[in-house]
């Protein structure tokens, strides 16, 4: 076996076509809304139309009497059922625990955001349920709302929660404040920046859906749901909300049409549908429409920050201080509290050697839809701030943008940052060099001049970044407040004829696990790729798992599978040794064959598997069968890194920004399937470009969503994007056997500051020094007008 865990059969590193594509391309995918159960009823969820109100009477009598209606339930009907939990306890600077308000599945007493669930109506048809819901008379006694961070933190602001003074959930910090301030005070140069990281709507194209079912004869509940992590849903729904033991609660997440973080949380809908199915002993289905998704799917980002960087005379960063307010929404979603803290503040070293760093974050309640993870989750917010600040530092010191980054790169590994993380490996110069070459950075001035001849302002921008992925070591996250472990589980079942079923606790909703994991198993077990199938998404089929998010599936879940394969091989050696009448220590495994060292006597994995299931001639005391499970708890985060370069042309008359080139040079660790990896990079880039140029979730002062449909929330289209120039320079992760890091979030983390730096570069001749995301046409035009007015 080579040092990279390969048996050399060539599956690892090959762009094999995906196993999952055949069903998706022919319309035979099976998404939650495609499933219909016998006797199924349909639910409509009545949602609050106001952002903040005392709930007076909720009169459901007319709805209950409407045609086809089986039941109407409101919050008080579910009283006694547990609230929807949050997964991470954050402590404030003073050691006090965060304010953690109750989160009833349906509103009781008050509503706190538009879209909060007030009632469920169950009827024979979808239309009947919807029409009956319109008959419910809700007495909303309006309260003043706080719809933004500014409003929520203003003196005397209305309170979302009476127990949260100043609407503060927590006031958290990381790093050494005194050291950072002292370094900044003594610095030769200081540069400050105020940035907004705007709220986004995740917008997986498949809206969420759920089907609850209950079998009164077995007492077993089944929930089909659009989830990235079915076992996590079982844990939260069973242990915290409904009080159901695991063996009576099955969660199935079938094909899921994209997640991007919005399908991580345990949602109230899942609890309501499961509970309602139990009440009625009938399957009950709910499918969100897009308008509903805009006010009920968790949203992302939404920070306001101010930061100061100190530099010495040579442009070396000496200290960084960041103060951030993070909008958490009205209720604490599953990962809401950790995203702006432990997935954010610990990123501020970036790829740089800044010796003193301090970050403080206020988590703030508002009367808006809950905020949770969105592709990158915390790390894009940190990277955007840092890379904008570095560009400003370059401008302030007169040091070239590339040079100032290079002067500060970390080059010795492992590297302990001042904000908790220890980077195991990386080569930031290599990805920078690659990106500069691939983007023809040096030839840019000619392109700028050519564009100027066409009346366009051309700009180029760069971002060098790291990310922390592959979450996460359970003991570490436990000490930081996580309420679950973040290991992963893989099972490998070698069948009697040598075909293989692989069971993973991760979930694939576009990532191609059915292909990538099969490549790992085929290569390491020396079997044919076609002989391996991967099973995911059903808690009754899979031992356990924590799911897919934080670019963890390959680094954590893939390693669990790899380790399970090693256990299979170890057992196979005992069987082979017996069959070959050799000592176990003399058996070598390669290319699917167990061989007595130094001889040509061998048994194939197929022969060993058959023996394991037909153990007529078998080692004494050894269990029959060939199936192994591994739980893998990672030793550290993984640290993908890279350089992104963006090039834009601005139409100075309209302010329109055209993105003309995007170059990525990425180190995502060892690559199993280059085709899939590049696809993940493309998708992340589009998401990051969407944030930089197009997407913005806006509320009005009353907490009504202004951008509540695709009519006014701008989704990136094919015509908004260029082809992507993707390049790789790979270093291997040192602490997992596959050497893999993660790729799903790279683009959304790395590219937004590159795009904005390019826009600012294009506008800098006009005197523009900063522009907020998204750099819409109007915003750019206004920035140009303002700069010209100052002249």
């Amino acid at each position, binding site marked *: 076996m080579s040092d990279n865990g390969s048996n050399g059969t060539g599956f690892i590193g090959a762009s094999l*076509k*995906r196993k*999952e*594509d*055949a*069903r*998706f*391309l*022919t*319309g*035979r*995918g*099976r*998404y939650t*809304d*495609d499933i219909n159960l016998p006797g199924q009823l349909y639910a409509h969820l009545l949602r609050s139309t106001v952002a903040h109100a005392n709930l007076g009477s909720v009169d459901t009598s007319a709805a209950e009497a409407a045609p086809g209606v089986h039941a109407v339930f409101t919050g008080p009907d579910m009283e006694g059922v547990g609230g929807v939990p949050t997964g991470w306890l954050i402590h404030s600077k003073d050691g006090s625990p965060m304010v953690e308000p109750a989160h009833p599945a349906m509103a009781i007493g008050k509503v706190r955001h538009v879209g909060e669930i007030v009632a469920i109506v169950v009827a024979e048809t979808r*239309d009947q349920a919807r029409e009956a819901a319109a008959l419910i008379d809700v007495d909303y006694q309006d309260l003043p709302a706080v719809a933004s961070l500014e409003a929520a933190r203003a003196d005397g602001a209305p309170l979302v929660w009476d127990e949260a003074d100043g609407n503060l959930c927590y006031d958290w910090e990381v790093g050494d404040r005194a050291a950072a301030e002292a370094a900044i005070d003594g610095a030769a140069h200081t540069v400050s920046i105020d940035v907004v990281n705007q709220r986004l709507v995740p*917008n*997986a*194209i*498949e*809206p969420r859906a759920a089907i609850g079912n209950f079998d009164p004869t077995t007492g077993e509940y089944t929930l089909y749901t659009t989830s990235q992590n079915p076992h996590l849903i079982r844990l939260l729904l069973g242990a915290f909300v409904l009080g159901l033991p695991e063996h009576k609660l099955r969660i199935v997440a079938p*094909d*899921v*049409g*994209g997640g*991007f973080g919005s399908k991580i949380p345990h949602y109230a809908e899942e609890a309501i549908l499961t509970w309602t199915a139990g009440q009625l002993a009938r399957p009950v289905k709910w499918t969100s*429409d*897009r*308008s509903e998704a805009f006010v009920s799917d968790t949203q992302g980002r939404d920070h306001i920050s101010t930061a100061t960087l100190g530099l010495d005379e040579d442009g070396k960063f000496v200290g960084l201080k960041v103060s951030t307010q993070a909008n958490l929404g009205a209720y604490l979603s599953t990962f809401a509290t950790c995203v702006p803290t432990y997935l954010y503040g610990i990123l501020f070293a970036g790829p740089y050697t800044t010796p003193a760093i301090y970050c403080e974050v206020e988590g703030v309640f508002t009367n808006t839809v809950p905020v949770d993870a969105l592709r990158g989750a915390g790390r894009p917010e940190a990277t955007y701030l840092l890379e904008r600040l570095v560009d400003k530092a370059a401008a302030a010191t007169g040091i070239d943008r590339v040079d100032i980054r290079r002067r500060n790169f970390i080059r010795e590994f492992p590297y302990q940052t001042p904000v908790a993380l220890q980077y195991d490996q990386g080569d930031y110069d290599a990805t920078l060099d690659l990106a500069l070459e691939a983007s023809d950075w040096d030839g840019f001035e000619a392109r700028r001049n050519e564009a100027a001849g066409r009346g366009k302002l051309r700009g180029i921008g760069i971002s060098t970044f790291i990310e922390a992925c592959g979450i996460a070591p359970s003991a570490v996250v436990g000490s930081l407040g996580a309420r679950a472990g973040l290991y992963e589980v893989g099972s490998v079942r070698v069948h009697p004829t040598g075909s293989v079923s692989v069971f993973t606790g991760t979930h694939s*909703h*576009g*990532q*191609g696990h059915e292909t990538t994991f099969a490549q790992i198993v085929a290569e390491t077990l020396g079997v044919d790729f076609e002989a391996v199938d991967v099973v995911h998404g059903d808690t009754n089929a899979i031992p356990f798992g924590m799911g897919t998010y934080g670019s963890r599936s390959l680094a954590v879940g893939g390693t669990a599978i790899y380790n399970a394969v090693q256990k299979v091989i170890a057992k196979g050696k005992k069987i082979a040794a017996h069959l070959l009448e050799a000592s176990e220590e003399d058996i070598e495994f390669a290319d699917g064959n167990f061989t007595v060292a130094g001889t040509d006597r061998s048994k194939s994995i197929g022969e060993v598997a058959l023996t394991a299931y037909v153990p007529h001639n078998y080692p004494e005391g050894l269990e029959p069968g060939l199936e192994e499970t591994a739980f893998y708890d990672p030793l550290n985060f993984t640290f993908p890194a890279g350089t992104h370069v963006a090039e834009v042309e601005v139409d100075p008359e309209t302010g329109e920004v055209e993105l003309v080139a995007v170059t990525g040079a990425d180190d995502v660790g060892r690559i199993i399937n280059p*085709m*899939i990896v*590049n*696809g993940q990079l*493309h*998708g*992340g*880039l*589009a*998401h990051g470009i969407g944030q930089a140029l197009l997407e913005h979730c806006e509320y009005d002062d009353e907490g009504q969503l202004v951008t509540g*449909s*695709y*009519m006014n929330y701008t*989704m*990136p*289209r*094919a*015509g908004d*994007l260029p*082809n*992507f120039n993707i390049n790789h320079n790979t270093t291997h992760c040192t602490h997992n056997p596959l050497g893999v890091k993660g790729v799903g979030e790279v*683009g959304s983390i790395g590219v937004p500051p590159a795009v904005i730096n390019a826009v600012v570069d294009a506008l800098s001749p006009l005197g523009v020094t900063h522009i907020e995301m998204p750099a819409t046409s109007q915003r750019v035009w206004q920035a140009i007008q303002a700069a010209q007015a100052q002249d």
Partner: protein
Amino acid sequence: MPAVTMTVNGVSRSADVEGRTLLVDFLREQLALTGTHVGCDTSQCGACVVHMNGQSVKSCTCLAVDADGADVTTIEGLANGADLHPMQEAFREHHGLQCGFCTPGMVMSAIDLVNRNPSPSEGEVRHWLDGNFCRCTGYHNIVKAVMAGADAMGGGS
């Protein structure tokens, strides 16, 4: 309730529907052709695109009754047994899909483009896909797939 009869994937199908029944709901709920998806309610995402009388349309914005007598093709009607349509094959070959949810609409839309414009430029492909959203792929490989699919179709289906 009005009765409708239409040809779906080459087979004549008749059913009673409400006036308000959308074509996509008729296909998904009454004919169990769940390959056509619904991703929005404002006629923008294109997950629901099917062909009606040879042209791509958004089946979430068409009434089933208004499709009476029409010839409808959905994603389920493209492959010939185990042989994928060249556009389906191009999406597979070029990794033009990830989660698969937008894919049926994307493929149906792409075929309509090639039927009109046998060898579209990259810019024409991107412009044509205005009515199809994808959140996974960044469109890079979809555009590649459509251009390869156009080549493979040899100028129309």
